């Protein structure tokens, strides 16, 4: 089995291995897997059904054959009985009367009348002497004084004692059979009594068989000449259009094909003491009628099974292929993302380099223009002062614009580079707070620390996490009024995270603002902000594997909570 399957399996494996990015790939693969799975599952079912069918077929045949055999057997006995009775009757008359008695036409006529009364079917009766001359005759034809020495039957009856002829058409064009019996007295005198039978009784026996429509039964002689009319194969004395299978005295059934290539069961048997063969024919039932009439249930089970298997196979394969496609896409996505971030990081480095290079000349332009303005301002009588003043303003504005550009470039670049060290977040927070304590004291803002004493050190980027704290604290300071309050807390969340929260009782935010606050270029500070601070903060926290949450209510205050992983996160 493994060997048989290894061919298609290898083909599928090869398909899986090839990196064709065509959408047909999955279609092709799906088709192949479905075919293979269907083949593997349907093959046993199919062979089971086939075996079942053929077994059924053969038992069906037996079922058909047995009655046919019995029927032929019975009818054969009827024929034999019929012929034996007639033969005995003729034989009896031949031996019961003397030659002289029989040779008298009146006597013979009387005997014939009695015989006809007792036994149906007799047409005539005649006495023939050993020289073959018709001595006397009772019947409808004028056969008196005929000589039969030249005829074959005469020699046969002389030789065998009794003779039953094949069917022949008599003068009246009716099918007839001749029965002839030779009688020899003790004194050695012998004569032949010859009687003619019509074959109406043959037809009666055949019709008494009670054949189904489409079936057929008839007598033929051993040369294949029809002795009674056949429903399918012709009239009396026609040649049977196919040769008989080997026949003997036991009724025997065989399956053959007839002239029209119909598959038939043919039952045949010799009839004793004659040349006749009784034949019965029954058409073999066709495929579908067998199925339909007898084993519809099997067919239903088979078809349902096939359908279910197909559905199951198809579904299963679809799931499989979809998974495959998904994971392929994910892999591709990851590769793209990696390429993308690599690209970003090199763009970032370039941007940082450019920004730093530009910063110094920008600072010089700024100071030079500033100095020009200072000098002009000192001299009220400076010629064209207004015009120069406008030019200088324009230069300074442009410097500001450049500053904005480099700032954005640098913030972008900064997001690209991370340096991990083991840190005490409390210490970093306190240190960052130090930068702002001056402003807080100026504005009489209370800075309350509720820091966990047993916060574990975590591995993260010092500069970046400090930038996060600084950005949030700056926002908190901007939000609180003079005399306001900022609470800094830290705590252990679970095995994986620590949390830092910065809570202020400042102006708070509307839901809309809170929802948008991490969007780049979203700002409420109008001219003062770039709208990048919180977006950068968010980006940093995410990159360090943390989470940042905001809870805010307008006019009541804002709480920013940062969850940081205790262990560094890859990516």
């Amino acid at each position: 089995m493994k060997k048989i399957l290894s061919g298609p399996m290898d083909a599928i494996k090869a398909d899986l291995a090839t990196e064709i990015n065509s959408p047909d790939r999955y279609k092709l693969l799906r088709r192949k897997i479905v075919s293979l799975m269907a083949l593997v599952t349907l093959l046993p079912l199919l062979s089971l059904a086939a075996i079942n069918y053929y077994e059924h077929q053969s038992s069906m045949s037996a079922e058909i054959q047995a009655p046919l055999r019995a029927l032929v057997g019975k009818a054969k006995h009827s024929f034999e009985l019929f012929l034996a009775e007639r033969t005995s009757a003729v034989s009896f008359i031949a031996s019961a009367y003397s030659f002289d008695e029989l040779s008298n036409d009146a006597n013979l006529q009387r005997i014939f009348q009695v015989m006809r009364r007792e036994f149906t079917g007799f047409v005539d009766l005649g006495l023939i002497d050993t020289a073959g001359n018709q001595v006397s005759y009772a019947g409808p034809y004028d056969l008196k004084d005929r000589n039969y020495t030249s005829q074959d039957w005469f020699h046969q009856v002389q030789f065998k004692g009794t003779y039953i002829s094949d069917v022949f058409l008599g003068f009246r064009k009716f099918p007839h059979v001749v029965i002839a019996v030779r009688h020899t007295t003790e004194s050695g005198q012998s004569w032949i009594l010859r009687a003619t039978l019509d074959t109406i009784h043959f037809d009666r026996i055949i019709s008494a068989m009670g054949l189904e429509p489409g079936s057929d039964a008839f007598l033929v002689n051993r040369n294949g000449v029809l002795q009674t009319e056949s429903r399918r194969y012709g009239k009396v004395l026609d040649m049977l259009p196919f040769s008989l299978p080997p026949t003997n005295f036991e009724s025997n059934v065989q399956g053959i094909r007839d002239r029209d290539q119909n598959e038939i069961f043919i039952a045949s048997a010799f009839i004793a003491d004659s040349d006749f063969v009784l034949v019965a024919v029954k058409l073999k039932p066709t495929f579908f009628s067998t199925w339909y009439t007898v084993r519809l249930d099997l067919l239903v089970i088979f078809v349902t099974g096939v359908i279910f298997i197909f559905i199951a196979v198809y579904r299963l394969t679809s799931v499989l292929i979809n998974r495959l496609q998904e994971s392929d896409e994910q892999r591709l996505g990851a590769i793209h993302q990696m390429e993308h971030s690599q690209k970003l990081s090199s763009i970032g480095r370039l941007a940082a380099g450019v920004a730093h290079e530009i910063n110094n000349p920008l600072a010089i332009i700024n100071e030079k223009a500033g100095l020009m303005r200072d000098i002009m301002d000192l001299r009220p009588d400076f010629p064209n002062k207004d015009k120069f003043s406008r030019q200088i303003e324009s230069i300074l504005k442009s410097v500001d614009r450049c500053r904005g550009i480099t700032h954005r470039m640098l913030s972008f670049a900064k997001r690209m580079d991370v340096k991990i060290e083991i840190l005490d977040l409390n210490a970093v927070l306190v240190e960052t707070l130090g930068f702002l304590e001056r402003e807080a004291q100026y504005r009489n803002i209370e800075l309350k620390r509720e820091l966990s004493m047993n916060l574990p050190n975590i591995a993260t980027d010092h500069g970046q996490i400090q930038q996060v704290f600084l950005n949030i604290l700056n926002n908190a300071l901007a939000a609180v009024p003079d005399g306001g309050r900022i609470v800094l807390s830290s705590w252990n969340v679970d095995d994986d995270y620590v949390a830092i929260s910065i809570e202020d009782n400042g102006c708070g935010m509307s839901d809309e603002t809170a929802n948008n606050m991490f969007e780049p270029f979203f700002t409420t500070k109008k001219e003062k902000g770039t709208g990048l601070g919180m977006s950068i903060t968010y980006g940093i926290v995410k990159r360090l594997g943390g989470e940042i949450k905001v809870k805010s209510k307008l006019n009541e205050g804002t709480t920013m909570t940062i969850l940081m992983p205790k262990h560094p996160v890859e990516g």
Partner: protein
Amino acid sequence: MDKNTWNILLVDDEVDFIVTLAERLELRGVNPRVVHDGESALKAVADNVPQVIVLDVMMPGMKGIEVLQKVKSEHPDVQVILLTGQGKTRDGIEGMRHGAFAYLTKPLDLEELIRTINEAINPPEGIPHV
């Protein structure tokens, strides 16, 4: 603000920038000294201890942070205002950890510089230096 009594030292290797800055400060009554590298800065401090040093972080040779550490170790009272390039917040924060008074980014806002120098020289009542 008795700016003309302030003793200020400006340190930056970008000559055009720092000289122009000095000139603008002079126009506002401040008389700073100007040097262009770390060694000269340390020499100038040794000659005459300034109240405030405005120090560029990025310089060839001795870096700003090194100058800061040396000055702070000998003269803890001297306030140092660092000048960093934009996007070099990390340098600024690093400087703060080593005792800088503040950090400002280039290009400078002159008024902000003067205000910061003033805060360094005249701290508000009761507020200790970080």
